[in-house]
Structures are given as structure tokens and as C-alpha cells.
């Protein structure tokens, strides 16, 4: 037996290839959508993974430091480190902002890391070029996604920094590349006011008779000095000593320090479940809409193709073709259309969408397999209307009057 569906496709391959390609672009967008979601989840995981932390200590009752703002004193880490089970604890600040380089702004997450060495929580775990920060000021390690080069000078707020090292895949949960700078600089950048604002504040402090007491020399200067220092950080990253249960350590920090502590899995829950939840819902909506549109298109095309063949189907029935063969003819064509669409879609997503999309698009093989199954299912379902129409055709129509 020859394949009727195959012959029909060969006969009108142009129609099939073009509709398949149209469908393919739609499927490509669908796959990319799923990839964008996976990319966001992956970015979140990488962010947590690369921070080198087991616990995040943040301001009480906040979901900081990524999903909400959080500020705690920058000396909290001392007390935390003395708690049993804590191997290391380090301050960290995060500030998403525009970083200026040769007059062009790059959106980046500026991360302040404490002096220390590689392995200190918050430090980039590996570099793909250059070295880690060694001086206390004005050095930066940037992710290559910023397109910064080694030795280049960038401007963060009012200060200039030299790029001494480059990392890869260090991004914030919204996909912005990270730029690491020394903690003190970062605290200053977070707190920094422009000169006018500083002068204005100084004037107000001087005018306040509570602060400006001629009888207490040095008080005004001390207050002004304290006003220009930022003693806050966003979080303390904690590495738990081997052999200790992170949950238990988290519990004892909570008990002693009156701070909120998140474990790795809780943090992941916050990032994936809360921070990117809205985006995920949007993407899910798009996926549903695209699936419906794809089904409608496949159903319409297959219906049109079948109606165009109604006379041939009557003849096939008249000469004794089994219903199974006729169902196969329609369904195979529908699936063939889906296959062409899927291949085109996969190629578009992999070669076109993923590389040029500004966000990290992670095309998981499992998603592709699931997408493939969905496409085939959609095609089978979409052909049902056509199959019903074909089975209703009366073979007497082939004879005519």
C-alpha cells in the first residue's frame, strides 16, 4: 500500500511547506517563550549558586535582598559569624543601576563585596579573565555581558573604577549583568547624594540648634560626618560549616539576632515563586494563547485541505477504501504539518530567537520534547473536525446523477 497522505503532500508540497513554515514561526515563538521562563529560573538559580551562600540574613520581616529592599547594620556579620555552625559571613549590597562607560549606559547590578578572598560569600566564584579585586577602592570585576573590557574605566555614580577581572553568567534575577566593586564604595554609591544635597543637609544640620551647640565643640562636625557615612548593607551572606544543618543554623541566627534568615531553598522559592511569578504568569498566558492560535490554524488548514479533497474521498470510499485509511490520510497530513512546523520552530528558536533575544533563553531538551508532544496532540485534535466531515461523505456523491 502506498502512503496516500505522503503522495498528497508531495503533490502539493509548496502549500505544505509554506503553511508548515508559518506554523513553525508560531511554534518557534512558543518554544522561545518557554525558554525565556526557563532562562529566568536559571538566572535566579545561578544568582543564588554563584553567591556562595547557604543562608541569607536580611532585615526582619522582609523578603530581601532580591525581592524586596532590606537593610541591616554592616557590623551584624560579626555577631553572626560567632554563632555555632557558621563558617563564614560577609556583608553584601546590591544596587541595580546604570553604569556609565564612554558615555554609554549599561544596566547592571552593582554588587558590593567585602574585602577577603575568593570563596568569601558574595565573591564571583571564578573569573574568565583578569584577577579578583585586591584593593579596597575603585576596582571592579564585571560580567562579560556588560561588554566591558579588562583595563577599561567605568563610572558608577561619581567615581571611576578600573575593570580588573571578568566573569561569565553572573546576572541578577532580572537578567542584568553584575558588576562587583568593594563594599565601602558600594555603600557610598548606594547612599551618595549630589553636592547640592550634601550642602543643603549640612546647612539644615547647622541651623538645628540641637546639633549646633557652641558649648559643645566638635559635636556638629561629628554629626555631619556620621550623616555622610552609610552603615547599612542589604544582607549578610552566610556559609554554613560542613556537618551543620543549614536549617538549624538559620534558626539560631533568627533567635539571637532578631533578623530574618532564608535558606537556599527558601530563597529559591522567593525568587521563582514571587519575584518572577508575574512574568511566569504572563508567559504562561502567551503559551496558552499561542497554543490556541496554532490549533486553530492547523484545524483550519486541514479542514480546507480536506474539503478540497471531498470528491476524491467519495471516490476512495466508493472503490472500497477503509475508513481507517481515510482517517490516516487526514491525520497523517495534519501530523506532517505539525512536524514541519516543529522542525522550523525548533530551528527558529535555537538559531534565531535564542542568540538575538536580550534575555537569557534556555531551551531545555525536555521542553522541546514536551512541545513536540503538544504539537502532535494539537494536530491530532485539530484534524478531528475534518475527519468527521470526511467520514460523513457519501460514496454516492462520487457517482453523481
Amino acid at each position, binding site marked *: 500500500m502506498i502512503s496516500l497522505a505522503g*503522495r498528497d503532500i508531495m503533490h502539493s508540497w509548496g502549500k505544505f511547506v509554506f503553511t508548515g513554515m508559518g506554523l513553525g514561526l508560531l511554534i518557534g515563538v512558543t518554544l522561545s517563550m518557554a525558554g525565556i521562563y526557563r532562562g529566568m529560573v536559571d538566572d535566579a538559580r545561578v544568582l543564588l549558586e554563584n553567591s556562595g551562600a547557604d543562608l541569607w540574613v536580611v532585615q526582619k520581616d522582609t523578603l530581601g535582598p532580591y525581592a524586596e529592599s532590606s537593610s541591616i547594620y554592616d557590623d551584624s556579620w560579626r555577631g553572626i559569624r560567632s554563632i555555632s555552625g557558621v563558617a563564614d559571613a560577609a556583608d553584601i549590597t546590591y544596587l541595580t543601576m546604570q553604569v556609565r562607560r564612554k558615555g554609554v549606559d549599561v544596566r547592571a547590578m552593582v554588587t558590593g563585596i567585602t574585602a577577603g578572598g575568593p570563596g568569601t560569600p558574595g565573591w564571583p566564584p571564578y573569573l574568565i579573565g583578569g584577577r579578583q579585586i585586591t584593593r579596597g577602592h575603585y576596582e571592579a570585576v564585571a560580567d562579560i555581558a556588560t561588554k566591558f573590557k579588562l583595563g577599561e574605566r567605568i563610572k558608577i555614580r561619581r567615581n571611576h573604577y578600573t575593570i580588573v577581572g571578568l566573569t561569565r553568567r553572573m546576572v541578577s534575577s532580572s537578567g542584568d549583568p553584575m558588576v562587583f566593586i568593594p563594599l565601602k564604595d558600594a555603600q557610598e554609591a548606594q547612599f551618595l547624594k549630589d553636592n547640592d544635597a550634601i550642602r543643603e543637609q549640612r546647612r539644615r544640620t547647622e541651623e538645628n540648634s540641637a546639633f549646633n551647640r557652641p558649648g559643645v565643640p566638635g559635636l556638629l562636625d561629628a554629626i555631619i560626618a556620621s550623616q555622610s557615612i552609610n552603615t547599612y548593607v542589604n544582607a549578610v551572606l552566610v556559609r554554613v560549616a560542613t556537618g551543620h544543618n543549614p536549617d538549624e543554623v538559620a534558626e539560631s541566627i533568627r533567635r539571637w539576632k532578631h533578623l530574618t534568615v532564608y535558606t537556599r531553598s527558601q530563597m529559591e522559592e522567593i525568587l521563582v515563586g514571587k519575584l518572577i511569578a508575574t512574568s511566569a504568569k504572563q508567559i504562561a498566558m502567551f503559551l496558552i494563547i499561542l497554543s490556541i492560535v496554532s490549533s486553530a490554524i492547523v484545524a483550519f488548514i486541514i479542514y480546507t485541505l480536506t474539503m478540497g479533497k471531498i*470528491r476524491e474521498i467519495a471516490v476512495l470510499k*466508493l472503490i472500497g477504501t477503509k475508513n481507517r485509511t481515510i482517517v490516516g490520510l487526514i491525520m497523517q497530513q495534519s501530523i506532517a504539518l505539525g512536524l514541519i512546523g516543529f522542525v522550523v520552530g525548533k530551528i527558529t528558536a535555537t538559531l534565531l530567537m535564542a542568540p538575538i533575544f536580550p534575555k537569557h533563553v534556555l531551551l531545555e531538551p525536555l521542553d522541546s520534547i514536551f512541545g513536540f508532544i503538544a504539537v502532535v496532540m494539537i494536530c491530532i485534535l485539530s484534524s478531528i473536525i475534518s475527519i468527521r466531515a470526511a467520514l460523513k461523505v457519501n460514496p454516492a456523491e462520487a457517482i453523481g446523477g
Partner: protein
Amino acid sequence: MTEKGITIVGVKKRYGSGDTAVEALKNVNMHVAPGEVVGLIGPSGSGKSTLLKCLGAVIEPTAGQMMLGDDLIYDNAWRVKDLRALRRDRIGFVFQAPYLIPFLDVTDNVALLPMLAGKPNAEARKQARELFKALDIEHRAKAMPSQLSGGEQQRVAIARGLVNRPPVILADEPTAPLDSERALAVIRILNEMAQKFATAIIVVTHDEKIIPTFKRIYHIRDGVTYEEKGEGRSFE
């Protein structure tokens, strides 16, 4: 009734019911022996197509008996379960319009029937090609239907009707679109086939050119058949 060929006794067919009912066949009696080609003529609306559809197991009669060979296929109800298999294995159809499958070439349009009956592709194609010589379409065996002339398409359709060597061929105005020379050629082929394979053939026609070629003719008027001896003129 043990005669071979086609035997029809007292067949009736009513379309619809109540006020709109149409008695298309009132009393049809026919016998066509193996190897015989008979004409079926009658005015428009007299029930010719209806009769072929009943006999071809495409629509169900209302009453009567129909036999193909020794088998009683209809006796006030179908006696055969798989009508599609009956059509596939025992009846060849040739219609007024050829209705070829546009996406199959000439060979496969014809070979499809033996394939549907379960023959391997190569054997089915061989069986198809054997008919092409007699029908003079050998040189068009690889062409697509859209590339054929009307007469060539009709000959392919005839090959399709014959390829499974069915004991019965039902042709509804097979020569309507053909010029007289080609019309006569088609009738000649049908006669050759009838003799060669002992096929019983009924040809419905209005065509004055071919009516004289039948040895036996059935007239049908208002759903009732009358037999008449034909001229049986040579068609050379």
C-alpha cells in the same frame, strides 16, 4: 435463481418518506450474464443512476432481491456485512466524470485498487500496466491526471474499473464527454473485457452513437424496466 452474472428481481427504491417520498424504482427486473454488455436507457429521472447505486451497494434499496454470481447480496435487506469490501472486490465503477485521484499518477490511480485489496505494490502496479496496453494509455503511465486529455482520463477511469477483474462493471454514461470515435473505442474495450474476463457489464447511456452496439437493452421508465433486443451492431 442459480444463474451467474447479475440478477435483479423486483427491486424497489423509495427516496424520503411521507409527502416528499419519491418512488425512484418501482419494479426492476434484470439479468446480465457473464461476458455480456447490456445497455440501460431511459429518460432523465427514470431511475438509471438509482439502479446502479443500488446494485453497486452505494445506497440501499427498499425491497427486492439482488444477486452477484451465486451470492444473494440483497434480499429485502443487505446480506453482506462489509459493503465496502464488496464494492472493492466485486464491483468496478466507471462514472460519467473520471474522478481520478489528482495526487497519484496514472499507474497508481489504477494500482490503488489491488493495493487496497491487499496486493503488494509491485504486483498491483504490474496488474495495472497489463490493462494499459489494451486501453492505449501505456505511454501515459507516469503522467499525473491533470496532464491527461479528457479521453485519456476516461480510459484511466475504465482501467480502474477493470483492474481488480470484478465480476461486475457498472458504467454510468461513460462516453458522455467523448467524441463518437472515442466513445465507440470505449464500448469496444468494455466488450473485449467482458469476453476476456467473463464480466457482466451494465452501461447507462443517452448516447445515440453507442446504443446500436448493444445486443440487449433494458429500458427503464418511471422506475419500471422493460427488456428489448438490441441491434448488436458492430462498432469497428
